[in-house]
């Protein structure tokens, strides 16, 4: 953009969005974010506007209105900002019959074409569902050359096991090295989703696995683990985490017993195929 723009008047068009982005665009004007201090003002009329904020996946019914609004803007500078995932690519609705999408694979290509870019050129994509005010502020700041672009595309080549990378984008395979077999971690992780949810489970499980490793250094791991978990509660006061830890303890020993009698059980169940 070169020179920093000091005054940008913005017209906001809804191209069939779910409202989330519209509300966030309004939210950026509210006291905590105050877009106006950057010289950005929302105007009610495309004739007065230098920039267009588009939200929504471009439904067929709105595309004429959008086109009209775009053409009503003064020919310079005509900045177009796509706010939200829908406006960046059609979002979750991308290949519905009610959307206007003329891209060759109807939105399944590499760039996930879709949304307003079908009819107007877009200068700034602000993805997010909906983008939070900070994200919109960042997009606008980038437009005004206050902030730098931070994202860049990546192309990784995932190397098969035991190969070492020779090029920069080649990555070798790493299975986390744990003394406790990976399958415990996997099973417990899945079950923990039910107890404490997917977000907190990683931290809780990592803490628990650390305790298990410690417990197995002892002669009597069962009692040791129980003590360790109880000791852990002195530090961690949260009632839900406590529940989850106790649950993990029980579940771990159940799995432990199950796996240890596994060979036996399997041989009983499939006597013929075993070892074939």
């Amino acid at each position, binding site marked *: 953009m070169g020179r920093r723009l000091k005054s940008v008047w913005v017209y906001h068009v809804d191209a069939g969005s779910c409202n989330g982005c519209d*509300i966030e665009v309004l939210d950026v004007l509210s*006291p905590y974010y105050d877009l106006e201090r950057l010289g950005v003002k929302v105007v009610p009329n*495309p004739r007065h506007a230098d920039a267009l904020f588009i939200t929504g996946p471009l439904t067929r019914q709105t595309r004429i209105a959008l086109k009209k609004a775009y053409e009503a803007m003064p020919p310079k500078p005509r900045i177009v900002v796509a706010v939200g995932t829908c406006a960046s690519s059609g979002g979750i*609705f991308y290949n519905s019959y009610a959307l206007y999408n003329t891209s060759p694979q109807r939105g399944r290509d590499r760039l996930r074409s879709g949304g307003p870019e079908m009819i107007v050129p877009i200068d700034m994509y602000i993805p997010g569902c909906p983008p939070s005010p900070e994200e919109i502020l960042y997009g606008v700041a980038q437009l005004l050359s206050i902030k730098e672009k931070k994202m860049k595309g990546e192309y990784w080549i995932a190397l098969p096991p035991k190969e070492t990378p020779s090029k920069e984008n080649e990555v070798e395979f790493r299975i986390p090295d744990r003394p406790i077999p990976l399958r415990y971690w996997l099973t417990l992780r899945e079950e923990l989703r039910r107890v404490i949810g997917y*977000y907190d489970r990683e931290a809780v499980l990592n803490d628990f696995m650390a305790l298990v490793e410690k417990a197995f250094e002892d002669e009597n791991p069962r009692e040791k683990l129980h003590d360790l978990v109880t000791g852990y509660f002195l530090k961690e006061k*949260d009632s839900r985490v406590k529940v989850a830890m106790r649950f993990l303890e029980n579940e771990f020993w159940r799995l432990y017993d199950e796996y240890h009698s596994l060979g036996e059980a399997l041989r009983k169940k499939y006597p013929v195929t075993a070892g074939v």
Partner: protein
Amino acid sequence: MVTTRDLEAHFEFECRACENGHCRKADVETILSERKGLKEFYEAFKEHIRECKRMTYGQYMFVIDREVLPDAVLWWHNHPEFKETHMSTAVGTDERPLNGKFVYMPFLNVQVEPQNMDENYWVFLKAYMPADDPSFPSVAAKLPAALWIEREVKDLLGFNPVGHPDPRRLILPEDWPEGVYPLRKDMDYRHSPMAEVKTEYRETPEGTTLVPMGPVHAGIEEPAHFRLFVKGEEIVDVDYRGFYSHRGIEKTGEGRLTYNQVLFLAERICGICGYQHSVSYAMAVERLADVDIPDRARYIRTLMLELERIHNHLLWVGIAAHLVGYDTGFMHAWRIREPVMWLVERLTGNRKQYGMNIVGGVRRDILDYRKEEILKVVKQIREETKKFLDIALNTNTFIKRAEGVGILPYKVAKAYSVLGPTARASGRRIDTRLDQATKTAMAYNEVDFKVPVYKEGDVLARVLVRMDELFESLWIVEQLIDQMPGGDIMVPIGDLPEYEEALGFTEAHRGEVVHYVMTGEKNKVYRWKVRAPTYNNLPAVPEMLKGYHVADAPLIIASIDPCYSCTERVQFVDVETGKVKVLTEAEFNELSIKYRGVF
């Protein structure tokens, strides 16, 4: 007309998932005597009832002949004892792959006694129509509440409501060709044919000037096209062409989404009340799978619903202030609202579109420190809102604009099945949270709160109802935190039963949200019908606008808190069944290239 009587020689009674467990073919008498009014209805329409069953707890279905449809709907809607009963909406389904017939099914929220959660229930009136003649006598001719839904099924499914007063196109784009019905099972969800633009506006009445509002208009945050017919600056009549946000949501699910993915699509029906849609959908699926979700999950859901209501009411006050040019009010309302958004961001990970739900429970837990955060924010909001309201409601110019404007009388509200705060401001005593709180996906039956009702019916009353509700919501949140039980936060749900139906509902901050789900094969959804509250509220807006000033139009329209995106979703998720005509990718590209030239 071929009646369903010929097609269905016998009728049977079936019950599913009652309290005693599964019992198919339960006693008719038992079912009909479970709730007040069922028997009475059965006696009155004995001749025409083909089948009756209990779909799930508190949801009853009668299969009736299509010619008595208007009478049956009106029988319930105008029931002399059940005053607040209203026609919720209707569902049209293409059941040809199943049984060669189309289905039109209005359903009603029967209020035996307002706010008595064990007495009220839902009644579904299902009418079959033969594939070659999908027509039924119009209910809308007698009941304005059915105006839109009948236009909708005409648009999307090609049904013919005989005698409909205003059979214009409602939903599909203006350049959509005649005779292509997206919701029929033989259309691919990506098929988007183009045709000539054809607008069907009402003619401007004599002696009036036309003032178009929208589709892009600063006074309405979303695209919608109101055509006001004015004399001087007084509004004489109104025409509405909306559905600019029609995104084909229902069809989008077809073939692409599984029942858990649909949940995230449901959330994106609306960015404001998304969680309500999400919970409604989840509830419908849980009901038909006959799963009771853990108590803790119910509490967390309720908590999130109430937090959503809090920030949405504040949002609405801000918008209303903005629309009357009172920008300071807007700014302060949104400043007060912001901590709730931050709170929600920390609870769920996002400010809107919480992504908190999964069929069978919730995805994140409320840990202790999160509870503390919630209580802190609730306290802060209560204080600041009180202060804010003191100032805003004492701003003379603000009150001047809101008082006595956009009056909606009780009778009109009832006839249009107006919902939510808009209805409560007109004296309707309805609130799904209390009316049907038993065995839902929420915990409203275990908390205590009041439902504010005002009788004035003007914009100011709508403001006051919302503000009263806001304080009630804060109180609910505190109770929920206090009573939050332990236990799991979700139960895994295995395979869904095939071709079962159920209804999920919540009370959004705009009114009751209803999701009807019918499952198909392979854990997919065969029919998903969404009815957002604005769908019922918006047709009543012309009634509110008539006789007022053009300058009041944006405020009056906003006073129902319209959400066009909710209303204009396109319903459903259907499964591809054997006979579906599937376009290949190549055919598809051809089509899109062919039609690219049109615009």
